[in-house]
């Protein structure tokens, strides 16, 4: 009844620090992805200034091989993130669902959407990366044409991405930090609103440009 010891089989076969390493891998890969996502949105938003600014930034990243290092690196980080976070999904998701429905607790609900948005991002972001690479190099005209045709796709991806990033980073601060939850929540909500607004503005400009090209 009183299980107090450590199972010998488990302690023999398993690195006792594995849970820590996985948790840190989740934290670090998550932070890198959020950093990337926000930088990406700021870069994309240069279209608001003008197509020339956007093109010269894309050219700069291309000339200095930053794109060729960055894209595979972020792909790898995303892959690591997926592998380490999958362990968090309960074996029987019904257990979690039933619990969430019983206690009606806000943060418990948001975690369900964390899983749902993760699935959405995995699919949509893969398609997006594939489309960008197929249309290489990045320039305002091809981007505008793509956004014009698939604006709904990018709208969904933007919202899913920012939701997942915002709540993900919030939860890491809650788990590791010493700052009040309300303060972190407010700061992250503000950043998310700014990033989403930038994203929407960029999307709008692209759609307009795409329309002009036709």
């Amino acid at each position, binding site marked *: 009844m*009183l299980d*107090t010891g450590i199972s010998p089989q488990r302690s023999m076969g398993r690195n*006792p620090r594995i849970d*820590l390493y996985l948790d840190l891998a989740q934290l670090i890969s998550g932070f890198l992805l959020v950093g990337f996502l926000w930088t990406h949105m700021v870069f994309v938003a240069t279209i608001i200034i003008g197509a020339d600014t956007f093109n010269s930034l894309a050219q700069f990243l291309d000339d200095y091989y930053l794109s060729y290092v960055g894209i595979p690196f972020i792909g790898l980080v995303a892959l690591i993130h997926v592998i380490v976070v999958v362990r968090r999904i309960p074996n029987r998701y019904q257990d*979690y669902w039933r619990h969430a429905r019983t206690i009606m607790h806000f943060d418990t609900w948001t975690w369900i959407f964390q899983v749902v948005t993760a699935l959405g991002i995995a699919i949509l972001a893969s398609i997006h990366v594939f489309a960008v690479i197929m249309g290489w190099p990045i320039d305002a005209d091809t981007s505008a044409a793509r956004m014009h045709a698939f604006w709904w796709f990018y709208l969904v991806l933007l919202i899913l991405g920012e939701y997942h990033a915002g709540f993900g980073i919030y*939860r890491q601060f809650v*788990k590791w930090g010493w700052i009040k*939850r309300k303060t972190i929540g407010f700061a992250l909500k503000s950043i998310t609103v700014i990033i989403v607004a930038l994203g929407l503005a960029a999307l709008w400009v692209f759609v307009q440009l795409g329309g002009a090209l036709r």
Partner: protein
Amino acid sequence: MSNRTLTFSVFRYNPATPEIKPCMQSYQLKEAGGMTMFVALTKIREEQDPSLMFDFVCRASICGSCAMLINGKPRLACKTLTRDYGTKITLMPLPVFKLIGDLSVDTGTWFRRLSVKTRAWVHTKKEFDPTVLEERMDNATALEIYEPERCIECGCCIAGCATANIREDFLGAAGLNRVARFMVDPRDERSEQEYFEIVGSDEGVFGCYGLMACEDNCPTKLPLQYQLAFVRRKMAVAGLKR
């Protein structure tokens, strides 16, 4: 004085009579001024149904016996007022813990296991000498120990915790809060590595998802986010140091 008639929907099941399936039973009761869930349950038991099982001891939110799910949320029946609710109130026993019957659960076995598993006592090699004065402790440290010690072990944090509801071996906020208390206690001679063995895994602090239903449902308002984060940071450092 309120004129409301409350309808309580109460979970009924007695493991001693498994042939009677679990069900929700309704009771009607006239609300009294300043009525708590505990008072309401006592009235129902006295006037309507003597077979109704629920726990209480102190009636002053000190003992932690009367925790239950009130409209789905873990609360102490003795400090929850009926006037803060609508006329329909659902009462369920706390999940995770072993059901004794109806609203009564056995938190004792769970917390006993927690105490043994976390070795929740001061570990020291010093021989106790009753003739000398106790060693002094500075006030700040004493307060840091007293804060987590306010835990009344009602089980609300465990019942609210998604991880504890999913995996049986998770120590939960009550367990990690307890460990945090010994970590700051200068009388406890355990090393970081010894603590890591106890809580440095998914059974311990790394199993926490950070949903904070523990903190949001704690009747004594313990700063569980700080406590959990404190243990997590300490264990991360200990684990990386080797």
